[in-house]
């Protein structure tokens, strides 16, 4: 019987069924990796592993198995920002310092532009542009007011798009 929300799988994993756990791990790893990659960049694998460990250690606390991806997303973004901040090797530029289009310093790839943003701003971009969440939901996830999300997003996305379209 089809189980589009993976409810049966999540329930079995919550009961400690290792085969269900490894199958759920196979489903969640690419999703968590897509969220952690753009936020934690070179620390993406560490962030992905930390997020998945937190997800699987706390799986029993998930009361709505159908919401597993949304629940995992909140943990992944939080862990990615935390890992990126603690591993930050250089202080990222303020958003205002991100080079404008035409600046010879400006690299053309997405990775380079993301590199110039703080992890919190990368998280806003990922949740809004990659996950398609509205500003209020993004604010709830990152524990900041929706207005802050909006202003961060406007500036981050402008820098991002200019670089991308160049």
């Amino acid at each position, binding site marked *: 019987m089809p189980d589009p929300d993976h409810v049966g799988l999540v329930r079995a994993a919550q009961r*400690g069924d*290792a085969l269900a756990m490894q199958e759920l*791990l196979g489903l969640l790893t690419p999703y968590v990796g897509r969220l952690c990659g753009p936020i934690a960049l070179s620390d993406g694998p560490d962030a992905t592993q930390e997020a998945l460990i937190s997800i699987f250690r706390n799986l029993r606390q998930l009361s709505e198995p159908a919401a597993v991806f949304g629940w995992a997303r909140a943990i992944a973004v939080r862990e990615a920002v935390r890992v990126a901040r603690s591993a930050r090797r250089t202080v990222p530029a303020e958003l205002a310092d991100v080079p404008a289009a035409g600046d010879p310093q400006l690299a053309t790839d997405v990775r380079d532009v993301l590199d110039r943003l703080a992890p919190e701003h990368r998280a806003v971009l990922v949740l809004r542009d990659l996950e398609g969440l509205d500003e209020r939901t993004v604010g709830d996830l990152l524990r900041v007011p929706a207005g802050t999300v909006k202003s961060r997003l406007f500036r981050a996305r402008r820098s991002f798009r200019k670089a991308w379209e160049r």
Partner: protein
Amino acid sequence: MNADWPVADLDPVRRMGVLAAGIPGSLFAVDVLDAPFDRVWAVAADLERELPKLVRDIRSMRIVRADGEVLVADAVGRLGLRDRFDVVLRPGWCVMQSTRVIGGMAAVADGAGTRFAFLGALRMPGVRLADPLLRRLARPVGRGMFRRLRDEVQQR
């Protein structure tokens, strides 16, 4: 544009570490073997022949059903206890589970060598309480399994 966002991946050994973290009381050990992945995994994946050599508690192992990467295997323990295992086996990844025991192996190429992980756990009530003690046992148990795995890889 989404295709160009950086994506993070986890190799099978790190994934096995996640699985171990989610299984209370699991033994988890990682080491690097000085042999290429194909040679190491050829030993690990040969469950019937090699698992009784690697895991001391198993006397024999017999695959009774195979459907792609999903297998069913019957194991007989040293004390004669029989266990039926559901198994998922693919290159670099193996998880097996009976009503009493969980086992796992994972491997990934690491330069010219292979990073390899063993996982083992008992499925019983209260195992969560013994978690710190069991995790301390991982090192000596793992050392023995890795020694035997190295011997088997060398003999191939």
